[in-house]
């Protein structure tokens, strides 16, 4: 696919000096193929950094240090910038999530309809605050700025499935009902 708004030729002086061989992925995990294909599609250029970080997170669920280094080498972006970008955007996560994820929306509509009470109830029941994972790795609790389902406020998204008009007790009960799943296959 055509990259329509690529940097005009000559802007990136490093490109004219010839490219070194493409670095090898950190492991032979097949999921790197999807990342490499995104890098190729974007022409391997530095401005594709955010798109490639999305590709890594889509493939692996998070972005670890090895991945950051590999992306930087592939796009010829210095580690300072790769790390700076990866940590600037709240959508990117540098640590793996638990078996289940519970996202509590804290958008304005959810906030005035009691999102804080839901977070407090989850903390009381499971001992985890937003951004934390339970000690057994079973449950990660996150907050979202707004999932855009304001009509159903307050909203909780458990493993990708949104529920509306949730009470604190209802949220805790829903988390307790989750099956004990096995770790996802590699």
């Amino acid at each position, binding site marked *: 696919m055509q990259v329509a708004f690529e940097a*005009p030729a000559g802007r990136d002086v490093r490109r004219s000096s010839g490219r070194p061989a493409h670095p090898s992925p950190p492991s032979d995990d097949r999921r790197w193929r999807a990342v490499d294909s995104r890098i190729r599609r974007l022409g391997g250029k530095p401005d594709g950094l955010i798109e490639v970080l999305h590709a890594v997170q889509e493939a692996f669920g998070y972005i670890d240090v090895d991945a950051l280094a590999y992306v930087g080498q592939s796009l010829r972006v210095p580690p300072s910038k790769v790390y700076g970008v990866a940590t600037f*955007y*709240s*959508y990117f996560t540098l640590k793996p999530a638990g078996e289940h994820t519970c*996202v509590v929306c804290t958008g304005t509509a959810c906030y005035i309809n009691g999102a804080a009470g839901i977070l407090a109830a989850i903390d009381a029941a499971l001992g985890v605050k937003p951004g934390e994972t339970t000690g057994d790795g079973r449950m990660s609790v996150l907050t979202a*700025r707004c999932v855009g389902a304001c009509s*159903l*406020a307050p909203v909780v998204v458990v493993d990708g499935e949104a529920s509306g008009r949730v009470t604190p007790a209802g949220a805790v009960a829903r988390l307790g009902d989750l099956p004990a799943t096995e770790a996802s296959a590699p």
Partner: protein
Amino acid sequence: MTEQAPPRPSRRRLANLAPAGPVRATAAVCEAASCLSGRSGEVHTGLVDALETAGVTDVAVKRVGCLGLCAAGPLVSVPETGQLHRNVSPEDLSGLVESLKAADPAAPAVAPDPFFARQVRVVTENLGRVDPESIDDYVAAGGYRALATALQEMSSAEVLAEVTASGLRGRGGAGYPTGLKWQTVAKAGAPERYVVCNADEGDPGAFMDRSVLESDPHRVLEGMALAGYAVGASHGVVYCRAEYPLALSRLKTAIRQAERAGWLGGSIAEEDFSFTVDVRVGAGAFVCGEETALISSLEGGRGTPVPRPPYPATSGLWGAPTLINNVETLAAVPAIVGRGGAWYAGIGTATSKGTKVFALAGRVRNTGLIEVPMGITLREVVFDIGGGIVDDRPFKAVQTGGPSGGCIPSDYLDMPLDYESLAGVGSIMGSGGMIVMDDTSCMVDVARYFMDFCRDESCGKCIPCRVGTTQAWMLLGAITGGTATMADLDQLERLSSMMAATSLCGLGQTAPNPVFSTLRYFRDEYAAHIVDRTCPAGACQELIS
């Protein structure tokens, strides 16, 4: 704070049911994000099965975008009879099937609910009518006609003139005249120009752009192509937030369809105009709604703003003149070019022309997506369209403009909704988030909530915003926590004025607005927290004993 959006929607495509013979009635199933989270996808498949089982052969089942009344979802509308089925449960579709069996297009149409009767739909005219995943459906509803007409019969200057004549102003929040912005880009001497659609809808409590992209993505593409023709750009890019997976997937589907059908790409409508559209996915940074920060993000960097001028209209993406408009602004363009700028200017008020889409939410009965003519009063929106306050509690305030806006008290319920009136009472139009609050909301706590948001979203580049939002948030926390003095309140006001005057970009400049507006109308609530150590709304936990 870590943030994560729900995973991608299921890849499974829901087949529409299209009878071979004449269609007596159509079940239009809302499959935008809100109804989908109420399992409207299962309503769709269940309904197809149930109609087949019942041997009904003259009823169609169709996926449509947002029907608007999200509070009562999942929704199924029957356009032939005007019926709207609410709270449809996928477990029990028998009532709906019986109603569809009996649907009589010849019977007098059901009077529309006041929720719909007071609305004027321009940008959202196709919402709930067309299948967002079908270009044929969009074309059948008159889509791409404005683009074809413009390319074949109008010069680019004539297209620009219609947009200028329409009086359209930027719907992203600031309200800058769209025609003027287009002229600046068109006049800039450069070999390459870009059109950027800002779909990084970051205001908490706002979902207008998401609904339009999920429900009518081709309309946004048509608006972008028209903008490209008018300003002389041949490349466009949509910058959409990652938190909207359904909008992204429907947008990408629409781009593929439009390329195949010749509405994007080279020689559009067999004329000498080419226009391509790419999608770039944001990654959760509110500041990227600011134009220069958005460009920095598009170039692969941290979303930090730079001082303006130069404005992106003269020096934007890769230094080229760049037109940045938000989703709603661009979605209004096909109607303006198709029906004429004068027609659009005939709606609304003297200075605020046309219609505005609002996301109505909070403590109001009919939450959902609405489009109203500029100049309508807040009372009409909250009480006629919105159906009043949940549990008949007293109305307290309407919050518009998100973290950059303000809280409007009941004294101004009869004020017309337009850019100037909203600014006059210390709020802003903003992108269209409208949160209704009742007496259970503490205004100090609301100010603290928004300051927490800005503190978290500040990019950290300039000191007034980075330090100011944190200090203001701590002062507000002391007030809601019952440990503040009146001197702290003075300090908060001084700090807020400093931030507004000296911050680098709009985020910091407007971050104190929720403080200013709540102080203006609800100063006694601040005093109650500080002097009496009580929270009149009963919301601040530390003060309830």
